[in-house]
């Protein structure tokens, strides 16, 4: 680089060490992430689900209070945390239940209820599913929040490795045409070419998926900040109120939220006392109708004692950033072709990781540094005698 070889050496150092630390974890994330791209299809294939009744379009929803009651009847000693409009199936509602309202909802059970008849469908044990095991390995390695934050740190190192990789790509390619693959040369050269080619082609995708993954590891913290920030602000005059014992109708609460946001649809309801609402409110989270706004949520807080709307506001930027980073990480926002492309890019990323790991191991063996290796590679490519 024009900025001199000492600066290049620093970048090479960053590339080497950030990669060494994160590669094994990135391999784990890429491998477990591959089936997760297709988690719905895999679940459909491996697990039977009770189908909701097929109804003509525009059939009105069941009375939500009855739907919740029939769901809870199938789960004795459990309380409802959230009622979710199934994003994949308009005919079913998902009821998320836990042993009490103040437990961490990550271990909640899901009960499926027919959206139009309000009857219980089934309560699948998600924790025994292949996709659940992959998801746990992928998000926290079964180590809870510390595991999650650790993987987030590995993601940051991955991003550092990509950025420094762009810098060290330049001297490596100074005498080569783009995409050069020196087939006749030893494996270390061939795999360097492969690493350079695949790495530089996927820079943007890897950075986006890597960094949105990092943002996702902060989800728990983002929600906490929102709880103590905007949510606390919206419900400040209720802070000293005792919890509601006889909440008003849920159906009416959703209707009130719908009236306040006529252009939006309900995504889920957080019951009073759950992490997404206050002790005294239904949090009705509305989503937009376009592909982009469907990812964004707007909570309407409905006083569960009076059924009146307390407040509705757009979520703060940091929650919006989290909500937008989710589809960009999952690749679930462009149909099956996008999922297949996502899988292909994931596999190519695995190639970048493995070739990178190999290059480091070989250089370590021969005791040669990255810079010397690069220099040797360039010299060799100018010298036909050394071409094997």
């Amino acid at each position, binding site marked *: 680089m024009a900025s001199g070889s000492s600066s290049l050496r620093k970048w090479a150092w960053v590339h080497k060490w950030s990669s060494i630390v994160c590669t094994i974890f990135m391999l784990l994330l890429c491998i477990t992430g591959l089936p997760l791209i297709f988690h719905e299809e895999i679940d459909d294939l491996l697990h039977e689900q009770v189908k909701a009744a097929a109804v003509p379009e525009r059939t009105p929803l069941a009375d939500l209070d009855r739907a919740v009651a029939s769901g809870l009847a199938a789960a004795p000693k459990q309380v409802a945390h959230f009622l979710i409009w199934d994003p994949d199936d308009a005919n079913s509602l998902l009821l998320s239940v836990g042993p009490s309202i103040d437990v961490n909802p990550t271990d909640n059970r899901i009960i499926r209820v027919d959206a139009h008849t309000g009857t219980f469908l089934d309560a699948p044990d998600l924790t025994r599913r292949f996709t659940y095991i992959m998801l746990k390995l992928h998000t926290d390695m079964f180590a809870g929040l510390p595991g999650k934050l650790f993987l987030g740190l590995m993601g940051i190192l991955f991003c550092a490795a990509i950025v420094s990789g762009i810098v060290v790509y330049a001297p490596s390619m100074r*005498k080569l045409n783009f995409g050069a*693959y020196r087939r006749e040369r030893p494996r270390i050269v061939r795999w360097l070419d492969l690493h350079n080619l695949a790495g530089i082609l996927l*820079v943007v*995708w890897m950075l986006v998926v890597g960094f949105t993954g990092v943002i996702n590891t902060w989800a728990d913290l983002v929600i906490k900040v929102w709880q103590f920030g905007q949510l606390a602000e919206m419900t400040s005059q209720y802070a000293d109120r005792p919890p509601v014992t006889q909440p008003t109708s849920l159906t009416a609460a959703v209707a009130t939220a719908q009236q306040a946001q006529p252009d939006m649809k309900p995504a889920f309801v957080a019951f009073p006392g759950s992490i997404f609402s206050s002790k005294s409110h239904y949090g009705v989270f509305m989503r937009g109708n376009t592909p982009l706004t469907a990812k964004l949520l707007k909570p309407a807080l409905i006083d569960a004692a009076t059924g009146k709307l307390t407040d509705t506001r757009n979520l703060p930027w940091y929650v919006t950033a989290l909500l937008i980073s989710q589809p960009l990480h999952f690749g679930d926002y*462009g149909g099956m072709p996008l999922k297949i492309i996502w899988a292909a890019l994931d596999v190519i990323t695995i190639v970048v990781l493995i070739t990178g790991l190999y290059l480091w191991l070989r250089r370590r063996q021969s005791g040669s540094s990255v810079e010397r290796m690069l220099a040797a590679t360039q010299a060799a490519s100018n010298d036909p005698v050394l071409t094997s």
Partner: protein
Amino acid sequence: MTSARPGVRRKTIGQVFGIPLLMALLSAIGLVSALVGDGIWDSVSWVMLLFPILLCGYCLRQVQK
């Protein structure tokens, strides 16, 4: 897309990063496009994100002859 030959001149930064920059731009369009809309927007996204994958395959196939 051939290997470097003896006496090939050192490339400028622009030459080294020309194609990667183009691919980065196409990938970025592809990533955002499907987020903005459905239908044609999804298709644009698929085509744009296919470019780096196909180019990768092309560069590796070229030398097998």
